[in-house]
């Protein structure tokens, strides 16, 4: 059940920010592998115009890639621009404009080599452009979203060592530095591009060139024949804004668009069998959780936290709140991602044990307020269902529905229990942004020096296997006594007409192959 209703109430499609790690070259066909329904119809066809509908930001939208905030912004940005790296399906960093990266021994200096690519105006992408872009993002006068992700980089000390080589100097060892390069919104723009240029004549190195842009309405881009990864199949792509989910579906059914982003599970169910349109489910795209503040009563007692873990009937939550579109969670972030601790046993509802734990903690007849809001799909539904489940364990939950526009800020420091959700990001980013003492968005108030130390240890560990072991230790700790009750991972649902081919079905939202239109063609 998604909550894509009115523009003002729509779940603002924020992506979770990231900073990241790991190196691996991946080139090639996104529609490559076995069970891809859409790639079966053979060779890509050139030509045509594809209209894609997203929920958008209305008249305030901009094409400044560093200001990208919503899914629609990102989809447009990735059509026009490139990052140095981007996330693969398992959220590991894949090289894009960067051809390769090489750290020094202590992991605090990284040499990045750019591939040969040109901007739409014909200028080559150079090290200077990269440094300009990063410095623009980190400008203390501004508040660009990626600024936090670039925090480890000492940009004053970093420099261009050649036309296409940059040396990044870091403030501390960072094994997952490639994640920084793939960070959300860290796009490379030409040197000296300024704010006003972006809406009028944006120039990037991406697969499409700018044609026209009307904020809140549509953006039209044309194929960039000189794209370094090969020209897109489509002649043109038009992004249209339709905040209302039913409008996107109707437009799709009526043949007014070819691609509708973010559909309801119900819609998916209605049309999956119908055959009028194609439904694409991007698995593991959105973590769904309840977030317990571990620094205050009653959740400062880890027995109460564990009891709550045991209260949740994850399948019921999934069926009720997400209409079954997703997978149950195991109180750990990043199912299916690199470094995920898949070995831990799946938690099931156990009301008796929960009750016993609560009794031990002296928290019988517990009464808690659960903050929720219509800010994201399934939030209020999940709150209602969890309230009913908790009642069976003798816990009274008062559901408090708050303002959707300030929800995230409201729940950061206030309350004790709230609904929470996160888009896809590397597990490392999840840990660093939310679970360290100095994390800026530490909604569970998880502050443990030993846990911080483990994170530093991982970042200084060069060997990947060893690093994975450290991550495993951290996750095991969170599994037993953490503040996140992660009950599910929602599918990201996309609808296309039958003509649309080459839509990647594996990539979670936020990753490279999601909303990537240079590999899509019209049959």
């Amino acid at each position, binding site marked *: 059940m998604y909550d894509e209703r009115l523009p003002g109430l729509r779940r603002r499609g924020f992506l979770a920010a990231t900073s990241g790690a790991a190196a691996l070259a991946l080139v090639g066909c996104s529609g490559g592998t076995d069970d891809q329904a859409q790639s079966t119809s053979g060779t890509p066809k050139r030509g045509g115009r594809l209209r894609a509908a997203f929920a958008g930001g209305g008249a*305030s939208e901009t094409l400044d890639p560093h200001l990208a905030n919503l899914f629609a912004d990102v989809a447009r940005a990735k059509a026009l621009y490139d990052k140095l790296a981007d996330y693969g399906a398992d959220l590991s960093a894949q090289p894009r404009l960067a051809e390769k990266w090489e750290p020094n021994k202590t992991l605090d200096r990284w040499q990045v080599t750019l591939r040969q690519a040109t901007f739409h105006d014909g200028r080559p992408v150079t090290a200077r452009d990269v440094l300009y872009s990063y410095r623009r993002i980190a400008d203390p006068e501004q508040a660009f979203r990626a600024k936090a992700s670039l925090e480890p980089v000492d940009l004053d000390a970093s420099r261009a060592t050649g036309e296409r080589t940059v040396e990044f100097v870091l403030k501390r060892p960072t094994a997952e530095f490639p994640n920084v390069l793939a960070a959300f919104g860290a796009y490379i723009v030409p040197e000296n591009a300024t704010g006003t240029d972006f809406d009028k004549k944006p120039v990037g190195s991406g697969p499409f060139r700018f044609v026209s842009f009307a904020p809140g309405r549509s953006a039209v881009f044309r194929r960039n024949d000189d794209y370094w990864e090969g020209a897109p199949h489509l002649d043109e792509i038009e992004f249209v804004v339709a905040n209302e989910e039913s409008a996107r579906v109707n437009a799709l059914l009526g043949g007014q668009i070819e691609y509708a982003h973010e559909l309801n599970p119900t819609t998916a169910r209605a049309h999956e069998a119908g055959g009028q349109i194609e439904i694409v489910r991007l698995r593991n795209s959105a973590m769904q959780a309840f977030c317990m503040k571990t620094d205050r009563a009653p959740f400062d007692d880890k027995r109460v936290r564990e009891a709550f873990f045991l209260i949740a009937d994850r399948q019921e939550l999934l069926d009720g709140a997400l209409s079954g579109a997703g997978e149950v969670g195991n109180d750990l972030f990043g199912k299916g991602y690199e470094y995920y601790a898949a070995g831990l046993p799946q938690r099931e509802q156990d009301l008796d044990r929960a009750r016993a734990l609560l009794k031990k903690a002296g928290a019988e007849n517990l009464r808690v307020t659960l903050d929720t809001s219509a800010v994201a799909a399934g939030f209020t539904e999940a709150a209602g269902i969890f309230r009913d489940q908790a009642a069976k364990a003798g816990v009274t939950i008062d559901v408090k529905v708050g303002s959707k526009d*300030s929800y995230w800020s409201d729940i950061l420091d206030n309350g004790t229990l709230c609904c929470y959700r996160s888009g896809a990001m590397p597990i490392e980013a999840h840990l660093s942004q939310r679970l360290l003492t100095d994390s800026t968005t530490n909604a569970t108030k998880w502050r443990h020096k030993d846990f911080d130390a483990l994170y530093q240890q991982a970042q200084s560990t060069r060997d990947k296997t060893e690093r994975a072991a450290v991550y495993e230790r951290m996750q095991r700790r969170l599994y037993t006594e953490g503040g996140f009750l992660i009950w599910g991972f929602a599918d990201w649902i996309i609808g296309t007409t039958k003509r649309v081919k080459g839509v990647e079905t594996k990539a979670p939202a936020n990753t490279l192959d999601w909303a990537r239109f240079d590999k899509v063609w019209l049959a």
Partner: protein
Amino acid sequence: MTTQLGGSAAKGRGAVSKCGSAAGRDQPRRRSTRKTAYRDTASGRSFVARRLLLGGAQTLAVVLLVFALTEALPGDAAVALAGDQPDPARIAAIREAMDLDRPAPERLADWAAGMLHGDFGTSLTSGRPVTQYITDAFGPTLLLAALTLALLVPLGFGLGVLAARHEGRLVDRLVSSVTLAVYAVPEFALGVLLVTVLALKLAWLPPTAVGYGTELLGHPAALVLPVLVLLARPVCSLSRLVRAGMVDALASPYAAHARRYGVPGARVRYAHALPNALAPAVQQLARTVDWLLCGVIVVEALFVIPGLGTVLLNAVAERDVPVVQGLAVVFGVLTVLLNLGADLVAYRLTPRAGVAA
């Protein structure tokens, strides 16, 4: 149809209800002469002037109210922009960049000062001028409203007259109950229904206006459903009012008199009775603007028409105070002007009714 029912009761009633302005009684006559004075150009002008003054006050009050409410909303533009990255430092930085760290009255004063020079200010979120927001979004909304009104008037009046003509008979009952049933259905439900049936099942019409942007006029088919949804409720209320007015007017002595002197039925209905049913209907029409606006918010969302309603909801969600303010001014002025116009028209149609200023 005779109205003098014989006996004293009918006559007495007629005397009470209809002859208020007739000569022979001091009280009512005096009143009517006073109202006659309004028609002098000077008084007429002062009537308009008083109404404009009131309108100005109304607009001001609306703006203040909206400002107060927008300020009172939880969170501000910075929080809204930060979204799910509510890093306090970042929010503070955004706030500073937006000038939100200054006290609210100061910002309002600044905005008002700019307003006096016709400067609506700039959006907090995008930094673009508010005027651009309004001009861009005005077109589609205006088109929708104009089309709706253009259809509403003949349809509402037509149905009202039709029902009044057949008062108490099947046609009347049919018109009355169908319009009433439609009146009770919220726009979103009606919209969903119409789209499902007319656009998806029958494929007669495009389900949305997605991607047409400002060139809505180039795609008239896409406008059919939105206008239909917008029309549904006002048509009902208007036709009910017209019906009631027409029933009264058709039963009035002056209608009987016109018939008595051989004026054809249609002419009695449209030229003699209808003008009397018009005054309340015209004022209702002005009130319809409020509904249209409400309807537009819903309809714009349902059919993806980037108009004022969409901008408004976005601006509220983004806590983009200058944009909300600008829209409040536009809506306030629009409402005031339309009500003024309606009052003037009504005043013209029933000059004996002193329209309270």
